[in-house]
């Protein structure tokens, strides 16, 4: 494992030529070479393109240019965010050979900030899953225990940062796909407010729910990356048109008097005991920091998954209609006597994996004639109530506190029932439904059969409340030391 130090430190050392962007990149590639055989977090690395990018940054620094706050920092990209001239598979056979002709806006912004995007991380197919087991090219393994999942769907990004392969990575979060794997891998993951980060170039799953966000080892590192990618984009009409505030400005300001809401629905008998203990300990930490703990209620927490599994699949079934075997992606030609319909149906039937087919079926069903009002319209009504419930609660407190997940990482292959898998996201989906921001940060550990598994604390704040959210997270981190503990990679299990 390579020790990059913090992002601010690495960028400063590159800027002052104590080290170089090329050396930082080589350290990442070398570490992936030695250890990713056992973890499989990367779908591919683009070493040549990235080396050229890093060399260009070093040359610009040599000539006295300011290359930006992320000078030479290597960053991994979830494989559902398009990067020009490199594969973007979305973990799907249907896009196995797809190469995007353009860069996503977040890639451009990382480049503008001096960063070096250098590889694509594995994810659940089209970001649908909670364990990164539904990647058509193989599962990702949790660096803390390689027999377990890293969470999903951005499991590759979370595992890569946890394993120390790179100081940061981008993921996407539609119902918890950044926060949940961050929790299970013991790293920081931010789901920004809906519309804060451009989705242009993110392969769409649920366009009213999707947001891109960063993974990193520390709150400040994740904040630096968020700062670089946040803001309005003419290519995404759903981006918020006010400029992103300076998140770093007040990051280290004490939180005395901050009102932290503890929803009683988040301390649940369905949670692992270790998870409830972690939340109680976090409450004490915040009390010690001078925060005021407020008991609040969010009764609609219980209908979040039901609401989400109408809205998400409905949007996905409509979105994924574009994968028809005509303009891009896998095409299965019609056989003798078959028609265009068969081309569509076979290309999609063979190209999509079981979970994606399941969600397309569910979405098509809830939108179909006779069911639309009972399911889709009703879910949209409940969606408004969920948002109102958050708005009311945020009158009583500034930030909400709770667990990110009900349990630590589960063994690969141990959950076969789709509904059981969906319920892993019970604490994360409502932030997407309501469009608010959230973060998961390391907050403790559980012992499971001799393994040490990380637990994540989730904080949530109102729409555009990132400043307060990140400050509350940073102050917790400063008062604890959970983020400093890293997994030991098994040298015997490393490949290549």
């Amino acid at each position, binding site marked *: 494992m390579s020790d990059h130090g913090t992002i601010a430190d690495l960028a400063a050392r590159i800027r002052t030529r104590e080290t170089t962007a090329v050396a930082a990149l080589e350290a990442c590639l070398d570490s992936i070479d030695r250890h990713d055989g056992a973890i499989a977090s990367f779908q591919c690395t683009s070493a040549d393109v990235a080396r050229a990018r890093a060399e260009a940054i070093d040359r610009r620094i040599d000539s006295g240019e300011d290359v930006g706050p992320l000078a030479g920092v290597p960053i991994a990209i979830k494989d559902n965010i398009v990067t020009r001239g490199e594969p973007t598979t979305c973990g799907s056979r249907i896009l196995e*050979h797809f*190469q995007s*002709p353009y860069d996503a806006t977040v890639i451009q912004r990382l480049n503008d900030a001096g960063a070096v995007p250098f590889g694509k991380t594995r994810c659940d197919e089209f970001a649908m899953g909670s364990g990164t087991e539904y990647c058509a090219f193989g599962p990702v393994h949790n660096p803390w225990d390689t027999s377990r999942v890293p969470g999903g769907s951005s499991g590759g990004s979370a595992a890569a940062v946890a394993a120390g392969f790179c100081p940061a990575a981008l993921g996407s979060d539609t119902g918890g796909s950044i926060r949940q794997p961050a929790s299970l891998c013991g790293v920081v993951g931010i789901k920004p407010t*809906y*519309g804060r980060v451009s989705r242009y170039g993110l392969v769409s799953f649920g366009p*009213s*729910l999707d947001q891109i966000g960063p993974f990193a080892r520390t709150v400040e590192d994740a904040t630096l990356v968020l700062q670089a990618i946040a803001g309005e984009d003419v290519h995404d*009409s*759903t981006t918020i*048109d006010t400029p992103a505030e300076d998140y770093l400005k007040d990051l280290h300001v004490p939180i005395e008097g901050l009102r932290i809401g503890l929803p009683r629905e988040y301390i649940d008998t369905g949670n692992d005991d270790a998870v409830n203990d972690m939340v109680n300990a976090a409450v004490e930490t915040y009390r010690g920091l001078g925060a005021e703990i407020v008991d609040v209620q969010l009764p*609609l927490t*219980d*209908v979040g998954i*039901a*609401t989400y*599994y*109408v809205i998400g699949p409905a949007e996905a079934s409509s979105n994924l209609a574009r994968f028809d075997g*005509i*303009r*891009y*992606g896998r*095409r299965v*030609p*019609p056989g003798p006597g078959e*028609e*265009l319909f*068969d*081309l*569509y*149906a076979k290309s*999609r*039937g063979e190209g*999509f994996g079981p979970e994606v*087919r*399941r969600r*397309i*079926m*569910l979405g*098509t*069903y*809830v939108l179909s004639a006779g*069911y639309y009002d*009972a*399911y889709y319209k*009703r*879910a*949209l*009504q*409940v*969606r*408004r*109530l969920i*948002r109102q419930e958050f708005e009311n609660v945020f009158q009583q407190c500034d930030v909400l506190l709770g667990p990110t997940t009900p349990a630590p990482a589960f063994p690969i292959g141990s959950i076969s029932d*789709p*509904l059981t898998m*969906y319920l892993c996201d019970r604490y994360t989906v409502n932030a997407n439904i*309501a*469009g*608010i921001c959230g973060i998961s940060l390391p907050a403790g550990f559980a012992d499971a059969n001799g393994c040490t598994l990380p637990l994540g604390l989730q904080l949530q704040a109102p*729409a555009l409340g990132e400043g307060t959210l990140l400050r509350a997270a940073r102050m917790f981190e400063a008062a604890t030391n959970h983020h400093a503990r890293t997994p030991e990679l098994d040298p015997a299990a490393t490949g290549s």
Partner: protein
Amino acid sequence: MTPPDASPGHAESPITIEEVRHVAELARLAMSGEELEACRGELASILGHIATINGVNVEGIAPMAHAIDMSNRLSEDVPGESLSIEDVLSNAPAVEDRYIAVPKVLDPGDGA
């Protein structure tokens, strides 16, 4: 947990194999008989859970398709840079000249 309410919607009635086949056709998904049967069981289980939203009183609540209040934003109608035809065609499974090739959709007798 809010108890499911059986009155509105169809969530409690088990989904039939004919419905599953019809939905697969609407979704343009070729699935084997076995896959359709497995899908029927899974959909029934998920729809059973989804029925919990029937316990929420939504009377008088307007549906909300989008979490943030926003309206259409229009851009100036000014030509700008766009992808080249070569770039756009580079991912097409079949290309002829500057066009994406598809199987014949018109019977030779239908046309000119």
